[in-house]
């Protein structure tokens, strides 16, 4: 398969997944606010700023908007084409990638992607504000439909594997960010301090997080009604069967990579397989206690960095193998480590944009 075609399939899928996840981020935020608005006004920047910190560049945001309020943040993350990760930008990029390989994908896939693009262009910000639930649901459904169409109309060979890799790497990265920002928010939120009744607000909020991952019912089946943060962390990070957990996503990406390279669980064929194998083993043998001991944030950061490295190596191996190989050590050194002030997150995000 042509490297360019493989790369376009990968990015088409990755951008589509990114759009879905951005919709989920925003959706969970609205969900939370509905529960919290009796305590703090919904436009409180504490609720909106973390989204920008994790998903975009705060400086860029501030150059375009005055306040971290619901209206500005939604506009920036949904419609603003100057934000390369906005839902509209992501879907446009997914569509551009699909368009350049239109002879390689099924016409049904193209139609579905094209429909969503035209739908987004027809929606006004007012519509989103008046009914965020329906809008985000529309995006999520469109993404599910696209995945279903892809599975059922596109040959399950190498190209399909690249679609899976794009989807699951993006999903693992986004789930890590979602848990990261919500964990941060819930452990430091003003509501927590003003809430005198033993953490019941916390539980409502954690339920909202689970809902945003479509995980509430699945979670209950595993943990019954024991909704506490540790169980939820364990479920969203380590559960082996839930399709939006980090562990599941990494495992699925690994399977797709093995399909391409022919690696197996006992030996790896290349650097990408080595890195993903290492991460998968880590996920398999870690417990939630160990995560808490290490600290949730450092643990998730490590995952995000590991995923960025895998993305780099994937690019070198399959899309641009003709350029001189860069040693992993060089990449590790090049990673600026500046703590979570948004810059590092942003750096890693920008590397996860398509290479031109």
């Amino acid at each position, binding site marked *: *398969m*042509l*490297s*360019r075609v*493989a790369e376009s399939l990968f990015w088409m899928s990755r951008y589509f997944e990114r759009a879905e996840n951005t919709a989920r981020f925003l959706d969970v935020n609205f969900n939370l606010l509905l529960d919290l608005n009796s305590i703090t006004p919904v436009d409180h920047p504490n609720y909106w700023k973390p989204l920008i910190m994790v998903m975009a560049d705060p400086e860029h945001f501030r150059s375009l908007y005055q306040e971290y309020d619901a209206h500005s943040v939604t506009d920036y993350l949904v419609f603003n084409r100057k934000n390369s990760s906005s839902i509209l930008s992501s879907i446009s990029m997914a569509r551009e990638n699909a368009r*350049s390989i239109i002879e*390689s994908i099924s016409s049904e896939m193209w*139609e579905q992607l094209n429909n969503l693009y035209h739908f987004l262009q027809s929606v006004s910000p007012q519509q989103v504000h008046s009914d965020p639930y329906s809008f985000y649901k529309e995006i999520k459904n469109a993404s599910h439909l696209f995945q279903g169409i892809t599975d059922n109309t596109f040959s399950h060979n190498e190209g399909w594997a690249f679609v899976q890799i794009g989807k699951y790497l993006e999903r693992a990265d986004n789930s890590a960010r979602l848990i990261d920002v919500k964990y941060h928010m819930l452990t430091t939120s003003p509501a927590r301090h003003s809430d005198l009744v033993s953490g019941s607000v916390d539980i409502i909020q954690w339920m909202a997080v689970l809902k945003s991952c479509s995980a509430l019912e699945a979670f209950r089946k595993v943990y019954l009604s024991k909704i506490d943060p540790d169980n939820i962390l364990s479920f969203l990070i380590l559960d082996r069967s839930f399709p939006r957990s980090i562990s599941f996503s990494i495992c699925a990406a690994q399977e797709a990579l093995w399909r391409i390279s022919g690696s197996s669980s006992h030996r790896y064929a290349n650097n990408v397989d080595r890195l993903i194998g290492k991460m998968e083993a880590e996920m398999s043998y870690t417990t939630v206690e160990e995560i808490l001991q290490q600290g949730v944030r450092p643990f998730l950061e490590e995952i995000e960095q590991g995923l960025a490295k895998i993305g780099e190596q994937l690019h070198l191996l399959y899309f641009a193998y003709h350029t001189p190989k860069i040693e992993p050590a060089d990449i590790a050194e090049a990673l600026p480590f500046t703590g979570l002030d948004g810059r590092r997150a942003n750096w890693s995000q920008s590397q996860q944009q398509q290479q031109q």
Partner: protein
Amino acid sequence: MTRLFDHYNPQSERFFDEVIACDGAQRSHYEIMMQRFNQFSSADIRARRELVNIFFRNQGITFTVYGVDEGIERIFPFDLIPRIIPSSEWAMIERGLIQRITALNEFLADIYHKQQILRDKVVPADLVLGSKHFRREFIGVRPPLGIYIHVTGSDLIRDGEGRYLVLEDNLRTPSGVSYMLQNRIAMKRAFPVLFDRYTVRPVENYPQQLLRTLQEISPSPKPDPKVVVLTPGIYNSAYFEHSFLAQQMGVQLTEGRDLVVNNNKVYTRTTRGLQIVDVIYRRVDDEFIDPLVFRPDSVLGVAGLINAYRKGNVTLANAIGTGVADDKVIYSFVPDIIRYYLNEEPILDNVETWLASNPKHLKHILENLDKLVVKAANESGGYGMLVGPESTPEQRELFAEKIVENPRNYIAQPTISLSRHPSFFNDTELAPCHIDLRPYVLYGKSVSIVPGGLTRVALKRGSLVVNSSQGGGSKDTWVIDNL
């Protein structure tokens, strides 16, 4: 109920009408078609029109119009009334095209080797060697089987008496064949009954024939030579066609950046490493194909491709430098070229042409600018021309200056009387619209021509320009076995 053809009236002595003879009688090969269409109500027509529109829209059959901001995609207009050519006429066209293409290929082989025709002064040497499309880099390079023009699409028109004339030879990267294939699919869906009543020769195997031709010209004989299509990319006006043909042939569609030359061999960059390429069906013009040899600023090409080609490690279809033979000035010599190489009289005539580079002709051109169509020798797609009878005195003056300044670059032809064909003016009304015909000729071990080709139609009332970039549309074209 009024019937569709009741009101159709060609109303002209000057133009040949494809359906109604000048005595008002129907031409026999159109009878069944007319009867069928006469049975349709305007609602029937609308329903079929809608069916066809949906088909084209879903297939994404669009072309890009340049000059409009950021290039707008439009659906290529399609007319429901098919153009019908009886097999006896077609046999003559086929012979004429084979003769013409064979002679033009001989001409190219000659001017890139011995240049005997120039020594014999049949074609003036300065016109050939001074042509913008003459590639001195290719002198002495022999392409496999000695073939330069593997895929061509000559434009044919019919004069007032119905004689077929060649208007242009497109020997570089002729486009439109995908419309021919899609038009046929659309017609079969909309009018299945008509196909029962006629024996229409099939065009559907064109992609297989194209692939076979391309494999035949592989530089070294192997069981399954690797063929790729090379496109300038998604912003090219014919991108749809490039991806369509690649898909239909089952070969890879590549852009310049997908190919790499190493040690004078061409490879595709794949997820499994480099894979050798034998034949490139390239839809990138000469000037852009290799930045090391032609335009250094080109990002569409492949560095080193030309050396690989000269070494004989890869075949390009069409060969480099074929544009010298479809130059509008060289065009006027094609009848002489046919006589020179084949010792035969041309079966298909040229349109009468005056060369501005010839002083006698130049005088005639300047005196008759209001009656002639003047064309720049190297432009295509209907750009850079003056249609005398429709021009203003100022435009003519401006053009006269340009011609005198650079006579090599201009030719003039009488305002051509393209034949006319009933076409839908709206859902209920037919009007006589001007048409031409572009048959597609493949040249591998032998010459083969798809029966029919693309009929382009000027859907703007009275317009003579059929190019898609200038508001033209197309028709399905049937070659039928005689009734």
